[in-house]
């Protein structure tokens, strides 16, 4: 009974009311506005500390890769090339704001003030999260992609319910944005006007899958419209644009204006992790192209041009970076594994009888191992 409709379309009714339909089309092009310039209000002091953080981050990242090659870390997810996106975004947060990073965001976590050695416990395998989330208000780096976006949204909802003027910022990737949780987080954030900022680092790859195969849209920022929240797309390798845009979003969120989705276009220069072989899915030329857009070099160039830094300052930063790298080596090399029995101690607030018994069994096993 449905087929006849599809076929013969002869003898269309002449009556207008029976020959007319109407609808609205969604025009994606219409949604993404032009590139507009905005002022940045950072003092030279601030510009320097922004550079300093990025430079230290770059050194920390390289050292983490080396330590992995040398076996001090099991694996590491480099952020080389994404320093501007991570450091610039974190730089716009206030002390009482929260950060919800992913495994990729070790540098953003570092920029937040978390000790790099504690951060890397995740990759050395000494503990899942060694730092205290409440000390710098940074959640453990999430491994299941996008799940942390909902945690950030929930924390922001809570802050709003309590009239607490803080915001939560969460990072996730262009691949992670394909997960259902990304949509649920942005939609709920919109419904409750939660003070949360979603910063998508679009580094063009989800492991081996390029952005164009991750989604058919030209910009993840367009998803903001679908949830009725502000969306921004920017050059994620331009630290000033990242900082300024996130600052706008942070201020809006803090003043009750709700969430913002920011897509920071960047590029992952290193392999997905030290365990990944990127030669299987992209050419050296492509990576070389990406390197040319190095956010650190770029920022340094402008700083020099503007006379905001001199060689003395850069030398200072270098020295600090080297000292940091040395401390990483010293602390992470042959770092002893913790007491295995600790694996029972944090499952519940209080050890259950079952776990107490199992802890005792492990204790016996360990005793037997030393003196069989």
């Amino acid at each position: 009974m449905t087929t006849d409709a599809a076929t013969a379309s002869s003898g269309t009714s002449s009556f207008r009311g029976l020959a007319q339909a109407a609808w609205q089309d969604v025009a994606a092009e219409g949604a993404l506005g032009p590139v507009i310039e905005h002022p940045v209000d950072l003092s030279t002091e601030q510009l320097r500390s922004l550079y300093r953080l990025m430079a230290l981050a770059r050194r920390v990242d390289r050292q983490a890769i080396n330590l992995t090659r040398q076996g001090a870390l099991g694996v590491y997810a480099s952020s080389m090339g994404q320093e501007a996106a991570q450091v610039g975004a974190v730089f716009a947060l206030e002390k009482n704001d929260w950060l919800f990073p992913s495994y990729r965001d070790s540098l953003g976590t570092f920029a937040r003030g978390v000790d790099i050695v504690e951060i890397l416990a995740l990759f050395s395998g000494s503990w899942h999260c060694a730092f205290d989330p409440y000390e710098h208000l940074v959640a453990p780096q999430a491994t299941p992609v996008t799940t942390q976006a909902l945690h950030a949204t929930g924390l922001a909802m809570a802050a709003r319910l309590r009239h607490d003027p803080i915001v939560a910022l969460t990072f996730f990737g262009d691949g992670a944005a394909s997960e259902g949780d990304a949509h649920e987080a942005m939609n709920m954030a919109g419904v409750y006007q939660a003070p949360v900022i979603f910063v998508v680092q679009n580094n063009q790859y989800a492991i081996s899958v390029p952005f164009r195969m991750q989604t058919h849209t030209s910009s993840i920022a367009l998803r903001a419209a679908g949830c009725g929240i502000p969306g921004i797309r920017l050059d994620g390798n331009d630290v000033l644009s990242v900082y300024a845009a996130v600052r706008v979003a942070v201020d809006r969120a803090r003043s009750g204006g709700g969430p913002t989705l920011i897509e920071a276009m960047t590029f992952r220069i290193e392999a997905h992790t030290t365990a990944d072989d990127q030669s299987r899915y992209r050419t050296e030329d492509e990576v070389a192209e990406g390197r040319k857009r190095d956010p650190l070099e770029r920022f340094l160039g402008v700083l020099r041009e503007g006379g905001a830094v001199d060689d003395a300052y850069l030398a200072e930063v270098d020295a600090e970076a080297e000292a940091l790298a040395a401390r990483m080596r010293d602390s992470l090399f042959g770092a002893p594994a913790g007491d295995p029995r600790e694996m029972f101690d944090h499952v519940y607030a209080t050890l259950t009888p079952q776990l107490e018994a199992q802890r005792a069994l492990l204790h016996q096993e360990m005793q037997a191992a030393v003196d069989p």
Partner: protein
Amino acid sequence: MEVTMAGALNTALRDAMRADDTVVVYGEDVGRLGGVFRITDGLQAELGVDRCFDTPVAESGIVGTAIGMAMYGLRPVVEMQFDGFSYPALNQIISHVGKYRNRSRGRVGLPLVIRIPYGGGIGAVEHHSESPEAYYAHTAGLTVVSPGTPADAYALLRASIEHEDPVIFLEPKRRYWLKADLELPVTAPPIGKAVVRRTGTTATVIAYGPMVTTALEAATRAEESGWDLEVVDVRTLSPLDIDTLVTSASKTGRALVVHEAARFAGYGAEIAADVSERAFGYLAAPVLRVTGWDIPYPPAKIERHFLPDADRILDAVARLLEY
């Protein structure tokens, strides 16, 4: 006065929200509607939309945001509208709710409650009669609670909301209208304690949630056959009060566990396995399992042939006595 389990749960939520303004209740239709089972009836009207509110249809979102709220310092109590609709939240529950305290080396506990009306027997369509307790009980870091009486419904929900760790609170929806003569607030043994509902000598019947009523009915009918059944209400599925179960089974020498969920790799397997091990030498018969069949929950018109009832329990008792 007469209190239904639904009423006891509603009062528990209200009392908890009045006592602690960090308690926040949310979920699909829990606000204006008061929940499809009316468990949250009147909470929004009394405590305001900031304390009890509706959500979009997004279970992963509901549980995921509850994690963030708990990190902040609130005590979210979220509702999954039905058992079958708690599954979209499983990733958040398994990957985060159960792991967060451990992941953060004890620094971030998540005092949240996930309420789930569960089980069959109400003539519902597919996905509305699931018994997912095994999924939750097997997940380390979760505390899994299921009341079998109106008094426990009140006391255990209050205790769950005050609990420092995340609680999966399984509400036997077919018993929402079960009545008891009670004065609320009522107290009861804490989370982690099983209770002997009826002492007996012939055999031990271990039950929880919806099957507590069924087990007691079977025990009453068993008298006709001269059998004196002991009925133990598990109350907390995880961590399990195995000692109370083993003590009873060792005393009677015969035990069975009953639940609606499918038998294979179901929660009853844990009880049967552990009681068999710990009471070995005291058991005159193997620990039997009286359960739903190993099939997807059937259509409403034939669900009574799936659900364990007094007859199925008594058949098992008879088998226990054949050893």
